[in-house]
């Protein structure tokens, strides 16, 4: 069983606000899910390499060239930002 403080710690790492009620529910759900993962302990996989990709790929590179953009794309992207100033995205002070 995972503790409530652990849930709060993970949520903090994930930059995720949880209410008290959510924290309790997640404590219960995460405990059940992490328990279920224990089944993997039975697999002897130490000699096996990890598999990050399933289809073999060559290294994919490209020229450092600006691709074609449709007109107004920058404006469309900026319009989606919650706060802008002079064509820049505005954020709160970091310090």
């Amino acid at each position, binding site marked *: 069983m995972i503790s409530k403080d652990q849930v709060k710690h993970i949520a903090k790492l994930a930059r995720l606000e949880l209410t008290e009620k959510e924290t309790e529910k997640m404590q219960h759900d995460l405990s059940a899910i992490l328990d279920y*993962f224990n089944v993997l302990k039975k697999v002897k*996989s130490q000699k096996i390499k990890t598999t990050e990709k399933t289809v073999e790929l060559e290294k994919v590179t490209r020229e450092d060239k600006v691709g074609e953009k449709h007109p107004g794309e920058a404006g469309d992207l900026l319009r989606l930002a919650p706060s802008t100033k002079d064509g820049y995205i505005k954020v709160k*002070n970091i310090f």
Partner: protein
Amino acid sequence: MESLLDLTISQAHNGLKNKDFSSTEITKAYLDQIKKTDGALNSYLSITEELAVEQAEAADKIIATQKEFSPLLGVPCSIKDAILVQGAPCTAASKVLENYVAPYDATVIKKLKKDGAVILGKTNLDEFAMGVSTENSAFQVTKNPHDQAHVPGGSSGGSAASVAGKQACYSLGSDTGGSIRLPASFCGVVGLNPTYGAVSRYGLIALASSLDQIGPMAKTVEDTKIVFNAISGKDALDATSVEYQFEESEISLKGLTIGVPKEYFEKGMDKEVEAIIKNAIKKAQEQGAKIQEISLPHTKYAIACYYIIVPSEASANLARYDGIKYGLSKQESKDLLSVYVQSRGEGFGAEPKRRILVGTHALSSGYYDAYYKKAQEVRGLIRQDFINAFKKVDVIFSPVSPFPAFKVAEKVDDPLSMYLVDVYTGSVKLAGLPALSLPAGKAGKLPVGLQIIGNYFEENKILSIAQQMEKLV
């Protein structure tokens, strides 16, 4: 207008060619049907009526002057609301993206538009494609057109319901652990999950990038093939896409070796589903196929492996929703950190939160080896199981799901029982293989899909065999 809604892509194409009807007429018929039926079905999150009418009129102009044109020209489709269509909302069924308007087209949309497709609207899904029932949508619960007390499956549930409910001629969905095949099975339509790399994911809102694939959902295997042919191929904007030219081939059931994984039939399968799948296998055998029992010994670890890898990747992919560049933003928060924390806390629903937490935990220092690394090792074993099997067999037949569509709200409070629904579809994805769901029969009112799994980039084999099986079941 009933008959226009029953047409397959190829029938609609022939009708347009013969000028039996116009694209505008089919498009209006579908838009009317959506207005009439979507109050109950809830397949669509948004209707792109203006775009559809415009595209239909453009198609009719081409039809008036040209004798030969793409089979997709003027034929109306729906698009899962995780795929970007420029100028249309794209919400991923999340409050985070409730007001997001796509600034560009996904590559698959560019390809469909080039072929003259008509886009009717964006379909419902589980939030960020996380789920197996479409009940995790932040906005609405889609109903199964065959029985509205039941779920359509997920996460591409709106796409499947729109095709089954005659609200679109075909649809594009995406599959991470079964999200095309499961709703296709539950709603009685054909759904193809292509090989990892066969279709560009540029413009698909990412869930788990080592697994996500876009694929077609349609009324028939023939239609599925037409759409797959149109959307597949390498794209400079998705580095994981590969050079791939789909070529149709005819592969006879006679002399074919079909593998049946014994682990899939061991326990937990609904009796009616088992009977339907066994009947399909028997029908193939009657046509001269050789049936061979195979073993995929690591099947029992697939769900645990999958539900470590997916949340790990998802927790990284969803880090971008921080209230800064786009999406829900708590601007009134007191400082930058509070903007992140509160925007994410308010925007994400329960399932994304759960997966972000599981993923963050699995990747965190001290737990990484036990969870993430271990899962990546097991993934290699699961993949090897399939590689070994395909040394002996041409294709694999299995169920898509252990049971037909379950009832709305039946599993909603038990996330782990939802996860277990992916038992036959998740391992295929961990191996990166292509697989198709073919309607194979019904348990009462509810459709049951046969899963046809093929070797890497052998969609041609899957589709050819599925086309023959379609006539037999």
